[in-house]
């Protein structure tokens, strides 16, 4: 698993937990199970934690956007190499075996890049960035 993915999943879980805790806190206040001063004290701590996690997620999203751009460039390059390879094949500048071997490598790289790009885009969509 990519490091961004691990971090993203971990931070998303932490953030969800923090938001759920905030909801639990609201419920306690609404049910009169907690006084307002205690609620505010705990809320302050939680909001600080949420802000910290959100800042971390924003920074992670920035890195992910950079990685997505890098992947797009990489995909463009691989596609260009593939087109080039096809031209060489048409011009009979490469033998069939070399062509097949190189094509397989490039196609595999292209697929892997596209999969990772899709995952990043989905993750960024989830957090609305």
């Amino acid at each position, binding site marked *: 698993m990519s490091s961004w993915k691990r971090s993203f999943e971990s931070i998303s879980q932490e953030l969800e*937990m923090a938001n*759920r805790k905030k909801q639990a806190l609201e419920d306690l206040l609404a049910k009169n*199970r907690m006084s307002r001063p205690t609620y505010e004290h*705990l809320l302050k701590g939680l909001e600080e934690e949420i802000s910290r996690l959100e800042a971390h997620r924003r920074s992670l999203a920035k890195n992910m956007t950079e990685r997505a751009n890098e992947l797009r460039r990489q995909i463009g390059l691989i596609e260009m190499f593939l087109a080039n390879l096809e031209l060489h094949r048409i011009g009979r500048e490469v033998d069939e075996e070399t062509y097949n071997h190189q094509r397989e490598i490039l196609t595999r790289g292209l697929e892997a890049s596209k999969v990772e790009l899709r995952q990043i885009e989905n993750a960024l969509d989830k957090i609305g960035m």
Partner: protein
Amino acid sequence: MPPDTQENIILELENIGCLKRLRLEFKPGLNIIKAPNASGKTTIIRGFSCMFSDRIPPSHILALDELNGRIRVHYDGKIYEKTLRRTPSGQVIAQGDMLPFADPRAFNACVALAETGVVHKITGGSAFFRKYLEELSYGNYYSALINTSQELINEYGRKLAGPTFRNFEALPLLLTELTDLHMRREEIQRKIEESRFNHEAKLQDIRNQIERKSSVLSKEEAQLSQLTRNLSLEKEKEEQFQELLKLTEESSEIASSIKRGITSSKENQERIRKEIETQTQLIEKLKKDLQVLRDSLRREEQAGPTALEDLKRQLENLNKMIILKEEEIQRAERFPPDDPEYPGRLVVDVRSEILRKIEWLEKVTGYFQEKYMRRMTSARRRFNSNVTRAFRELGLKGFGNVFLDQDFMLHVMREGGIRQPVETLSASEKLTISLILMLAAKETFLPDFPLFIVDELTLSYDPDRFWRIMNYIKRRVPYLIVTSLTSSLTGNPEVIHRP
């Protein structure tokens, strides 16, 4: 009082130590109290020192066989008197005046008895002078305030570590546990919904199958009815043919035709019967299938959704656990109603009160620490400067410099910059350093105190050193009083004056 107008000081003692009654007169300059051993030289100094402060004197200051005593001093045209009284419990109580220049620090800076601060320290080999300088510079007031603040901070810190505060600090953890229970409950609720939905879908599927089968059965039954009707019609047709045949001549063409009709009708009947049989079997099968489906529907309806009961039990348990956790949280936010200090109060309020106090006390501590540091640094510098000047002006051989470092540790530097530990100094050197440190302390902290008293400490001095030091002190203090041993074995203490 300016030095040129200084008057004599008269000291009168009554029932002090071993002295029943004594009158001594001290003139400006050097006064040597001469007396044989055990004749009351130290008692005179102790008695005189009682006039320097309002401290409670030691019980032995008063003659052991007396209940009352008196110390009287004639100074600057006035009489200052202190009376001493022994209580039934043996304590000595002093009442009366102090000298106008009295200062409780004088005993440590201006009275060189074997038991006084510096002498005791140096002769004991100790080199730490922080406490000594703290007392003389009043830095001890700051350190007392700092210690008190620190003690209060520690006390509040101990309070914050108490069980109620610990429970309160665990609230975020309890909230996490509660959230976890909520999440587990949501999961169970989701499973229940899913189970109900699946069950309903399954029932609906069976119902649909039943409906479809019923519809097929109806059609097949209609078909069977039709076949049965067809069979009856064929039978009627055959019967009609048979009747007709009876009326017709057997050899006629009509008869042949009727016979073919009968044969055809019989064949039709046979075919219809087979079809009826097949149809009946099909209907039977459909009915059986339908019965199976209905049984299945009944069973499913009776059984209800899969594992629903178990899930409901889990949900019930989780709801109970949530209530218990909420109660735990509710308890953690308050002091118990029977708490001796904060009954029923919110921990968050008490905690912020205590934290505010700690914050304030830390500010106070910081403020006084700064004051203390400034005062002590300044005191140490002035003290060191006076010590250096004394050594320079006395020109004592063997000593380079004597000073206190920033940790208030005394350093004795020999000529050539070699450091010598205090405990390794000779007895007379220890005494010389003690006297100079005391004189430096007096000049630094008690510059207006007119007396400097040295008790028999100079016995080990050679005459040159004795006079060099005494003359040096005499130039700086209006009245220098020194006790000394006489060669005679008896006699009262007497004062020899050297202007």
